[in-house]
C-alpha cells in the first residue's frame, strides 16, 4: 500500500502533501503520543484524533510518512507548516478512529505486531 491508497480508502482530504507514493507497511492509531513513542515500531502511518504540533513532532521522531486526522479534525497553520518542513503528509478523514483503522486493516494494512 502507498499513501495514495490510504487517501482513497479513507476518502481522505490531503492537507499537506509529502511523498504520496511512499510505501506504507504498517499503521497505528492513538490519541496518546506517549504511547506512540513507547510502543510503536516501524509504523509509517499515525491515525489520531489529537490535533496539536506534538503529533507532527512525534511522527518526525518515529520516521512516519503520514498522519491521518480522524473525525474530520482540522489542524491549524502551525501544524501544517511543521509537517511541510518535515515532508510529512497530513490528511483528514470524516471516519471515526475505529472505522478508519478497520477500513485500512480490512484492505490489508496491519499493525505490524502480533498483539
Amino acid at each position, binding site marked *: 500500500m502507498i499513501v495514495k491508497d490510504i487517501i482513497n480508502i479513507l476518502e481522505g482530504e490531503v492537507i499537506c502533501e509529502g511523498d504520496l507514493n511512499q510505501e506504507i507497511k504498517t499503521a497505528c492509531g492513538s490519541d*496518546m503520543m*506517549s*504511547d506512540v513513542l513507547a510502543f510503536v515500531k516501524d509504523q509509517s502511518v499515525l491515525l489520531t484524533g489529537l490535533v*496539536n*504540533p506534538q503529533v507532527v513532532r512525534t511522527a*518526525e*521522531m518515529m*520516521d512516519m510518512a503520514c498522519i491521518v486526522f480522524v473525525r474530520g479534525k482540522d489542524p491549524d497553520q502551525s501544524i501544517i507548516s511543521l509537517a511541510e518542513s518535515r515532508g510529512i503528509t497530513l490528511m483528514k478523514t470524516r471516519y471515526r478512529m475505529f472505522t478508519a483503522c478497520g477500513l485500512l486493516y480490512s484492505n490489508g494494512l496491519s499493525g505490524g505486531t502480533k498483539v
Partner: protein
Amino acid sequence: MSNAIHLHYEVSGEDFTRAGEASGAVKKRLKSLGFNSDAIRRVAIAMYEAEINMVIHADGGYCDVDIYPDRIEILLADRGPGIADVDKAMQEGFSTAPDNVRNLGFGAGMGLPNIKKYTDEMKIETTLGVGTNLYLTVKVN
C-alpha cells in the same frame, strides 16, 4: 575525545508547541553525519521525551549533545523542582503531570521508562528544589 561534535540547545519552558525542536535538530544532524537509522531514532525518541519532561515539569533548561563515532552522549539539565522519588518516576504509568498535559497527548507516565528503554546508559542526578540532570548514552552499532 577531540573528534567529538558538540551541540548545545536551550529548551524554552514557556511554549509546549516548541518542545521537540532540539531533538529534531539533533536527528537531522545525525542523519547528515551518516549514522544508522536505529541509533538516530533511539536518540531522537529519548531526547524528545526528555525535552517534553523539561517543558512539563521544569520550565525548560538546556541540552548538551556530544557526538562520537561510536556513541552519542546527551545531558539534559533543568532547574526545576527535582524528582521526589526516582524509583516511582521510573515505573510505567506513574505520572505527576497535570491534566492539561494529558489533553496534549502526554503525561501517561511513560517518559522516563521509555528513555531508559531506548538508551544504553541513563543516569539521573536530582535534588529537590534545585533541579535535575539527566545523562544519556546511545551506543552506535
